């Protein structure tokens, strides 16, 4: 790791202030991606602003027809939350499948979403459940949040405070993990959400995306059979040593079908 200055803050305002006064600050939430990246010397922030002490953005609450999860809530807390498990079991099970137990004890929903790894699981939930991302400045719709590979709508210094998930009438997430890293080669969140059917795919492309043809097919007939005939194009999908674009395209269909069956 390159040397940096570490600052622990107790509030969102202090975090933003600290970041603003540094050369090249980065917020660290759970640090499950940032710290390994820094260890490999692939990132060299001048300052790390640790959000670990910002208790105001931790925790899970039910707010009307939404589950609101503070940005600094760990994956393990989401996975074991009775509120999440009863309202959106798909979200709890998604969180329970991220990384490994030790990663889930440190990694946070805010950190994962802000990082926007194309193979991360949470983006599928944010888009697939039609969530809203709350920041220190504004709210951003889930569909607008992820802009490109590791790119989001967040502005310089802007900080996620919470994510609210409308409770769907049913939803399921199915993941095909990379055998080595266990990140998603393809992960599909299927939901019958308040605003209609959503099918969000992570891992397959440069960023999470919605599969419109499947959504259309499921709208009239919410069964696995309904999407059997939907052709998923391999154009623009990721290809690496673990999976080619064709295989990923195929897996989108398989995972989506299994998710629908699991709903």
């Amino acid at each position, binding site marked *: 790791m390159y040397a940096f200055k*570490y600052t622990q803050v107790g509030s969102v305002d202090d975090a933003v202030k600290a970041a603003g006064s540094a050369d090249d600050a980065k917020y660290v939430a759970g640090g*499950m991606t940032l*710290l*390994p990246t820094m260890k490999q010397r692939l990132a060299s922030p001048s300052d790390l602003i640790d959000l670990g002490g910002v208790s105001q953005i931790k925790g899970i609450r039910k707010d009307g027809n939404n589950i609101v999860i503070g940005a600094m809530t760990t994956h393990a807390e989401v996975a074991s939350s009775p509120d999440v498990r009863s309202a959106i079991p798909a979200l709890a099970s998604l969180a329970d499948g991220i990384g490994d137990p030790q990663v889930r004890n440190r990694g946070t929903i805010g950190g994962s979403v802000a990082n926007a790894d194309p193979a991360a699981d949470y983006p599928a939930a944010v888009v697939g459940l039609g969530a809203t991302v709350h920041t220190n400045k504004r709210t951003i719709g889930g569909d607008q949040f992820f802009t490109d590979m590791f790119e989001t709508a967040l502005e310089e210094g802007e900080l996620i405070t919470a994510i609210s998930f409308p409770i769907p009438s049913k939803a399921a997430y199915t993941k095909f993990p990379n055998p080595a890293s266990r990140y998603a080669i393809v992960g599909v969140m299927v939901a019958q959400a308040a605003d209609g059917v959503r099918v969000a795919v992570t891992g397959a492309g440069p960023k999470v995306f919605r599969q419109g043809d499947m959504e259309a097919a499921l709208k009239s007939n919410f069964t696995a059979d309904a999407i059997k005939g939907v052709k998923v194009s391999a154009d623009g999908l990721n290809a690496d040593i673990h999976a080619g674009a064709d295989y990923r395209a195929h897996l989108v269909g398989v995972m989506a079908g299994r998710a629908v069956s699991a709903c």
Partner: protein
Amino acid sequence: MTVNVSMNVNGKTVSADVEDRTLLVTYLRENQRLTGTHVGCDTSQCGACVVHVNGKSIKSCTMLAVQAAGAEVSTIEGVANGDELHPMQEAFRDNHGLQCGFCTPGMVMSALDLVKTNPDPSETEVREWLEGNLCRCTGYHNIVKSILAGAKAMRGA
């Protein structure tokens, strides 16, 4: 930047001046000379460095020492009661759950966290829980057996 970091490790308050960038595992190994916590990779996957911070298992190679300031940390060195092995350690010994011993401290610390939340895990649950702990010697067979036996012993204790 150098900072003084204190924490409670295995029931004792310890402190050292370290750089901001010092990892918890480095703090434990080099500043506290608790070398039972190992480093087997640099991508947060192997789990040889697993310790407990405030009662939860974490990878000490992916946490800064300064982030653990004031925390309760337990490492493999704090598991046995003097010379008497903890039932989980005893189960590893009795079931040949280790060979070269390098992954073992992380395995034991991980297993103890599992049993805390799931006192009676199934074989499948144990295998899935070990996703973050790599072993190259045992083929996992006897590690799984050890954890099941250790959990049983702890239930009986």
